[in-house]
């Protein structure tokens, strides 16, 4: 296992070292809170970030498994296409926006606009999310074990939003549907895989009321 100390280093230097080090061995990065865009665009490998990470960590991830051992900043796992991003703590505004695929797991809470324009990823938040989570979702799953803020799943177009707790207000173009056995099995599999203490039976499922919600 290779360790990269990011102290006093810049994005270019750290990400270059990281790419050079990803040769089958997991790589540990420490002291990287000041780096924004850490582990950007990786296509393979395992990365463990000791402590917290800055903004845009795991942006454009295309196959790597990236674990952040504490908290992460804004726009975590932005525009991910493949792979996995796991945050042991909480994340800020705009987690997992514009994702096409892969899995994002946040064990703590996540900020506003989580999962905006999700186009196919599985986004799992074990805690609470802020307002506007799931805005403009086109595909994929957004799973919230805790509570959500205002405008939850606002202008949902396609895809599934699941929530174990409650929301302050539901967004436009949404409707609540009964959980199916397949939904429960899917959530149970996620929770077992990522060791999240939640009971899928109590979850509610939100889908789009219409696939064309916009007044053009």
């Amino acid at each position, binding site marked *: 296992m290779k360790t990269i100390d990011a102290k006093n280093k810049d*994005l*270019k230097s750290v*990400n270059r070292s990281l790419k050079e080090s990803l040769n089958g061995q997991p790589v540990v990065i420490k002291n990287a809170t000041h780096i*924004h*865009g850490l582990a*950007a*665009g990786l*296509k393979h490998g395992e990365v463990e970030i000791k402590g917290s990470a800055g*903004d*845009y960590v795991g*942006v*454009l991830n*295309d196959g790597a498994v990236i674990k952040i051992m504490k908290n992460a900043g*804004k*726009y975590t796992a*932005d*525009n991910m*296409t493949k792979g996995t991003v796991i945050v042991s703590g909480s994340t800020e*505004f*705009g987690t997992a*926006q*514009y994702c*096409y695929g892969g899995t994002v797991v946040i064990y703590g809470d996540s900020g506003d*606009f989580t999962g*905006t*324009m999700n*186009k*196919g990823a599985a986004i799992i938040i074990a805690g609470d999310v802020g307002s506007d989570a799931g*805005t*403009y979702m*086109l*595909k994929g799953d957004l799973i919230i074990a805790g509570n959500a803020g205002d405008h939850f799943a606002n202008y949902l*177009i*396609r895809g599934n939003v699941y929530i174990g707790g409650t929301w302050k207000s539901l967004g436009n173009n949404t409707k609540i549907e009964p959980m199916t056995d397949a939904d429960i099995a899917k959530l149970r599999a996620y929770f077992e895989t990522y060791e999240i203490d939640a009971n899928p039976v109590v979850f509610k499922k939100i889908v789009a009321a219409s*696939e*064309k919600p*916009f*007044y*053009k």
Partner: protein
Amino acid sequence: MAVIGAFCVSVNKEICLNARMPGKCATCAEVCPHGVYALDRATGEMEVVNFNACVGCRICTEFCPENAIRINPAEPEYISRYPWTFAAIEEVHYKSQTGEYLLRGFGTHGQTPNFDMITVVPSQIASAAPLDKYREECDMQVVIGEDTCEKPVVLKQPFVWAAMSFGALSKEAKMALAIGAAMTGIATNTGEGGLVPEEAWLARGFTDKEMTRKKHDPGGYLIIQWSTGRWGVSVDYLNSGDAVEVKIGQGAKPGMGGHLLGAKVTEDVSRVRGVPVGSDALSPCRYYDVQTLDDMKRMVAFLRDVTEYQVPIFFKLGPSRPYADVAACIEAGADAISIDGLVGGTGCSPDIVTQGVGIPTIACLPPAVQALKDYGVHRKVKLIALGGIRNGLDAYKAMALGADAVGFGSAAEVALGCRVCYACQKGNCPYGITSQKPEYRARLDPIEGGKRLANFIHACAEEVKILTMLSGHGSIKDLTTEDLRAMDLNTAAITGLKLCGYERPLPIWDSMMGGNGGNGHKKMESKKVSEER
């Protein structure tokens, strides 16, 4: 206001095939995007049922096998009935009947301040002698990103194709643009709709995916657009081009995101964009993953990182506050900034936005140039003018106003055969340029289209050379506002150019420039944009 009630449609029944043999021909009804003609299916007779809807595109006259149709401008109603012209009345009727506002394609129509009221000043005895276009050389090359990345873009001519997405355009049109770019050494742009795979190798001049068989010299460049909808965006997508363009806005609808209506989201478009078939692909008006200028700097930083610091970063702006917006792009780390004026085109936009939002291209350039000068990066961070550039004359004027290159969007579509019917959003383009329907797409041969585009670029390049050299310059880099004069007060006031006959800028500019006259604004703010936020 839509272009309605402005044209008279007349069909010569003596020669019209349908009039002589009902049912034998319905071409005009098939090709008209606005339903001016209707076929009576029972009798086979064709009638002009809605002549008020004619926008004067004359597609019907081009397709009519008997040359039986004439389209002539109606009386100038804008003079006699303004403001309650027929078009204004029809617009109110449409809204009151449907509850919807008007959507349309293409760009602004009608009079706006433009390049036509600027004239070129030839060189004579009082300035450097003119150069001989036929016997001397003229440097037309533009290099973007030479100090910031490993592989700068080296445009052989000072032109790019404006960003137009797959979805808005057909695959054949995208391929033609790529071929045209390869044949002339300029750059094409994916637009925000993802990458048509063929674009990547065609733009570089190759005919195969592996890029082993080069056909078109000198080969061009592919600009990859990164936008608010992020359609079809991945790390592979970003690395498939020669530059990345961060789209902030566009001329036809500044402050709004892209509109691709579900009717045009076919299986092919769905695959490239990564959105479900038939769903409207409406891009957000802003980046959800950028809230501050610092975020934008970080975005540029990771875009450079995932492209291995190989390619330049462009920004594309709509016409809003050019000085401050260009300053922000400079601070964010742009290598080139495209600024798209009011007249810029689009595949679909609310009519009121296309007509009434934003400022003209000629008004964008002076403050944009001044921002570059104030930051000490004019001619280093390249400025690309977009919006209503139709020919080498417009291009020359834009470059003399301070741009390094210009982009053609609407003109490129016209070069492919477009007749400007303002109905791109409907998906029924009879020339196959903005349609996804196989029967229309089959009419556009990408290779022939590419040749037409290359011809257009060659002609415009020659025009720019003529004007540059008769102004006494051997390089487009040497063009200045001294090579231009405004021909009316408005244009002099907007641009700061010297007024013909008066031979100096208007007094309002004199005071701003400390009596020096010339291009641009006085340094507007001592504080940098980042300090204001």
